[in-house]
């Protein structure tokens, strides 16, 4: 079982969270001409990296906030967590 440090509540079990996908995907800007390829990349195409990865998680059974989690997809080690609106440097 993973333990995730929610930036709002503190250390909690993975059971309380729901996975939300890749956090590095950016939605195409509004009012911008968007090609089919760009939409395809935004909606479907993921790199599915092996290694450090930035993910979205929803603390659905806790504070109900979306958070970002930096996790290694091969070892499951969690390095850092951020609030959803925090910039990751």
């Amino acid at each position: 079982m993973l333990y995730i440090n929610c930036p709002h509540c503190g250390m909690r079990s993975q059971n309380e969270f729901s996975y939300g996908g890749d956090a590095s995907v950016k939605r195409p800007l509004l009012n911008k001409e968007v090609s089919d390829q760009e939409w395809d990349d935004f909606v479907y195409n993921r790199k599915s990296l092996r290694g450090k990865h930035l993910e979205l998680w929803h603390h659905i059974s806790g504070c109900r906030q979306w958070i970002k989690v930096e996790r290694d997809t091969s070892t499951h080690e969690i390095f850092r967590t951020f609030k959803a609106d925090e910039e990751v440097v």
Partner: protein
Amino acid sequence: MTSISALANVHKKGQFGDFEDKNEKDLLKISEIKNLLLVQIFQYKNSKIKLENIEIDELKFKNEPLSVVNNDNTRILWNGPKNWLLVSTKKELIKDIFENFNETDFAVTDLSHSRAIIDIEGLNVKEILKKGCPFNFNELKKNNSINTTYNGLVLTVDMLNDNPNKVRLFILRSFGESLYHSITDASLEFGFKSL
């Protein structure tokens, strides 16, 4: 208006489990609580209102994890960032709440009839909770509250007292019976008195 019991079909009074040859004082006590005012208060993200200026039943809202501000009648539980659950025996507070929290800055929802509430009191309360929750209950002190899961059911745990341990569990009304079964099953080995 009096609340209709959410646990009427399952909550039976008496002593159950391994209660024989034990002092009644040492048994866990499980009871259903009714007729409380429950109000969820959520401050919108863009709201600039400062909560220091707002008081309900002489209590100020605290935006801190685990925190519960309380007096004899009312408890304000932190449920998430800018999100609280107000629990009170004073039903008339609802008027104050609607007057103080304007609808352009806050979402105020009366949940009084949509939760089942179970109180558990006794030495082994934390052992009962540990059986179904992934949270480390040794960290939970008096006047702390958390949202977590018990056997997969999402609930709010409010630590009312720590000597002896007393917790109040809030759960969606329709899951109340499932939680009650889970809690009473977990309590059988210690013996419990249903009030």
